[in-house]
C-alpha cells in the first residue's frame, strides 16, 4: 500500500481543496448565469438594490417614515417631497424606502420558515411514504384546498393586524407548497439509481436524505422560493390592503395603497408610487424565478 508518504497536514489541505472545488464550481455557475441569463441578472441586481435600500433606509430616506409634516398634507410631488406626502403629511418616498423593509422582511421570513418546515415535512412524507405520508398529505391537502388568500384572511383577521401574524398566516399557506415539492422530489430521488446505489452500499435514511435528497432538490426549491417570494409580497400587500395585514403606522406598501385608495383622484401619487414599487419588486422575483428555472433545468443547460 502506498499511503506511506501521507503527512498529517493532508486533511486540512484536502478540505481546503474541496472547498475550492465547490467554490470554483459556484464561480463557474455564476459566470454561466451572468452569461446566459441577462434578464435574471438584471432582476438580481434590482433585488439587490432593494435590499440595499432596505438596509440603508435611514441614510436614503430624507424623512422619518412616520414623521408627520403638518404643514404639508397630501402635497403633490415637489422638490422637498419627491413623491409627495400622504394624508398625515408623511413623506411618501421615505415611506416607500422603509416599506421595502417590510416587504422583504415578510418575504424572507415567510419563505425561509416555510422552506425549513416544508422540507422537514416533505422529507418525512416523501422518504417514509405509507401511512405517515398519507396522513401528512391529507393535512397538507386540507390547507391547500383553502384558497391561499382566504386562509390568510381567516388567520390574519382572527389574529389581528401585526407583522408577525401576517408571517404566521403566510407561512401556513406556503408550507404545504414547499412540502409538496420536497415530497415529490424526495420520492423521485428515492427511486433514482444513485440512491439505490447508496442504499446498496448500506447508507441509512438520514444519510440518503442529507447527502442525496437535499442537494438534489435544491434547484426546484430555489426556483419555487423565488416565485413564492413574489407571491408572498403580494399576499402581504393584499392583506394590508384589506386592513388585516401590517398595522399602521408601519409603511407597508399594501397599507399605503389601502389608505390611498380614497385619494385615487385627488392624490394619485399615493396610489401610483407604492403600487409601482410593489409590482417592480414582485416582477424582479418572478423574472428571477424564471431565469433560475431556465438556468437550473438540466434539459436546457449542457
Amino acid at each position, binding site marked *: 500500500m502506498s499511503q506511506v508518504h501521507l503527512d498529517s497536514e493532508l486533511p486540512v489541505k484536502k478540505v481546503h481543496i474541496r472547498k475550492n472545488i465547490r467554490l470554483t464550481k459556484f464561480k463557474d455557475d455564476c459566470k454561466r448565469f451572468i452569461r446566459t441569463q441577462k434578464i435574471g441578472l438584471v432582476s438580481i441586481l434590482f433585488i439587490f438594490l432593494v435590499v440595499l435600500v432596505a438596509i440603508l433606509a435611514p441614510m436614503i430616506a430624507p424623512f422619518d417614515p412616520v414623521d408627520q409634516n403638518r404643514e404639508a398634507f397630501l402635497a403633490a410631488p415637489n422638490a422637498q417631497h419627491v413623491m409627495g406626502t400622504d394624508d398625515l403629511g408623511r413623506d411618501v418616498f421615505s415611506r416607500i424606502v422603509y416599506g421595502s423593509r417590510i416587504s422583504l422582511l415578510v418575504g424572507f421570513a415567510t419563505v425561509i420558515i416555510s422552506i425549513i418546515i416544508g422540507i422537514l415535512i416533505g422529507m418525512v412524507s416523501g422518504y417514509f411514504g405509507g401511512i405517515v405520508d398519507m396522513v401528512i398529505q391529507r393535512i397538507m391537502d386540507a390547507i391547500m384546498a383553502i384558497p391561499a388568500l382566504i386562509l390568510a384572511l381567516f388567520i390574519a383577521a382572527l389574529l389581528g393586524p401585526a407583522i408577525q401574524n401576517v408571517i404566521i398566516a403566510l407561512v401556513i399557506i406556503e408550507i404545504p407548497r414547499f412540502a409538496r415539492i420536497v415530497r415529490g422530489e424526495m420520492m423521485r430521488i428515492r427511486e433514482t439509481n444513485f440512491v439505490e446505489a447508496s442504499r446498496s452500499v448500506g447508507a441509512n435514511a438520514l444519510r440518503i436524505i442529507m447527502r442525496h435528497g437535499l442537494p438534489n432538490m435544491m434547484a426546484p426549491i430555489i426556483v419555487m422560493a423565488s416565485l413564492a417570494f413574489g407571491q408572498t409580497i403580494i399576499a402581504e400587500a393584499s392583506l394590508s390592503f384589506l386592513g388585516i395585514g401590517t398595522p399602521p*403606522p408601519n409603511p407597508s406598501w399594501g397599507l399605503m395603497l389601502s389608505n390611498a385608495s380614497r385619494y385615487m383622484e385627488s392624490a394619485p401619487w399615493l396610489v401610483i408610487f407604492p403600487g409601482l414599487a410593489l409590482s417592480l419588486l414582485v416582477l424582479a422575483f418572478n423574472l428571477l424565478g424564471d431565469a433560475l428555472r431556465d438556468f437550473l433545468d438540466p434539459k436546457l443547460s449542457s
Partner: protein
Amino acid sequence: SEDNGGNSSESQPSNDEEGSSEPKHGGTFTMATPADPDTLDPHRQSSIYTHQMAGFVYNKLVTYETGPDVEYTDYNVVPDLAESWDISEDGTVYTFHLREAYWHDKEPVNGRQVVAEDVISTMERIINLPGHQAALLSEVESMEALDDKTVVFTLKQPFAPFLNFMANHFMWILPKEAIDGEIDLSTDAIGTGPFVLEEWEDNVQATYSRNPNFFEEGKPYLDELIYKVVPDQGARIAAFRTGQSDAIGGISPEELNTLTKSNPDTIVKEVLFATQEQVFVNMEREPFDDLNVRKAISMAIDRQSMVDSIYGGGEVSGPVNPSLGKWALPLEEREQLQPYDPEGAKALLAEAGFPNGFDTTLMVTDGYGEQLVRVAQWIAEDLRNVGINAEIEVVEYATYFSEKWPNVDYDIGVGYQTYFQEPDEWLRTQMHSEGTRNWFNISDPELDVMLDEQRMIIDEDERREMVYDIQRYVLENVVNPIPVSTYYVQSPQQPYVKNWEPHSSYGYIHMKDVWLDR
C-alpha cells in the same frame, strides 16, 4: 328598480333654482351605504345600520324633533306613537296616550291598529333581552295598559333621563305578533313607520315602499327608498357622481373637493358627528394613575388641528358629546379647560417624575375604519413631541371589543364611544365606579355621588347646571376618558333632494319629510 344609471348629464341640471317649495310626491330615493345590518332586529343589535333601517319602518313612543328650524343637536322630545303624555308630580309615573296608528299591511299583522299591549310587550322584550338596551329601562318598576290607548310606566324613583331614554333608538315599538315569534325579526320588519320594507337582499340592497297608511297625513313624499350596499368609499363617490345615488354618507374634505369640482351643484350637509374620539387610559397602570400624567396627555394633543386636517373640521369635545347640544359644556369652556400646551405637558410630566417622558403603547382598533387609526397616529406623534413614546398597537375589532377594552387590558387607547343620547349615559356609564362601560378603572367616590344625584333632578335647567359641574370636575380631577374632538360630517346630496334635515340621533327619522324636486 329605477333606471338612472350612467346618465351623467342629469347631475348637472341647468336650472337649479328652487322652483317650488311645495313638497312634491313621488320618486325613488337611492342611498349608498358602506354596509348593511347583520340583523334587522332593533333590540338585539346596536349597529347604526340596523337602526337606520329600523327608523324607516318603526316608530317609538316619543321621538326628537327634526325640521328646517331645528338644529341637528337639538334634543326636543316630540310625540311619535304617543300623541301626548303626562308626568306625575313626583316624577315617578309617566302616562302615554297612543295615537290612532296602524301597522303595515303585511302578514301576520295585516294593518291592524296599534294597541297598548304592543307597547307593553315590546318594553318587556327590551328588558328581558340581554344587552345595553335593557339598562335604559332599569329604573322602570312596572308597566300597565290602562286601555287600548293608554300605557302607564311607574318608576322606582324620579329619573330625569327617562323621557329621553324613551326617545332612544332602542325603543322601536314592535307588533306583539313579532314578540310572539310570528315574524322573523332578524330578516323582516313590520312597523308603523313611513316606509314598508319590501325586500332585503343581504349585502346588496334594501327596498322600501311608501306606507299609504302612515299616521302623518300626506307623508312620506317618496314612493320608494332604496338602500344600496357599496362598501368601497371610492365606488360610493363614483356612484354619486354618476347620479346612481342621491345621497352617500360622510366623505373626507379631499374627496368632497374633487366631487364638487365635477358636480358643482352638489349640496353638502355639514353636521356634528354623534360621538367623539376619546383617549382612555388605564388608571390601574403606572404612570397613568398620576393625574398629572393624564393631564399632560390631554394637553399634548393638538385637537383642533387634528380634527381639521383629518376630518376637515370639527370642534374640541367634552365629557358629554357636543352633539347633545345643551347638555355639553359650551365650546369656549371645553377649549379653555383642555388647552393645547405641549410645554405645559412637559412640565407636568417632569412634575410627575418623567422629565424625559416614558414608553407606552397606544391601543386602537381598525374596526371603526381607517380614520380613527389616523387619529391614533396623529396622537402618537403629539405624544412623542412631549416625550411620551407611544407605540401603536392595532387590535382586531372582536378582540378589542370583547377582550382588551372591557377587561382593561391596555395602557392607553383611542376609540369612539357608542352614540349615547343622554348625558347620563355619557357620564354615568363611563365614569361611575359601577358604570357598565367604565373600562378605564375610574373610581372616584365624589364623582359617583354627583353622578347619582344628577339623574334625580327633574328640572331641566337645574340638572344641566349639575351636568356642567360634573363635566368641569371630570376635566379637572379625573381626566379620563380624555375627550378629543367631535368632527363635522360632510355628506353630499344631489341638488334636487329637498327637506333633508337629519338629526344626530340614530334612525334617519327625517326621511318622512324628504322629497325630490325633479
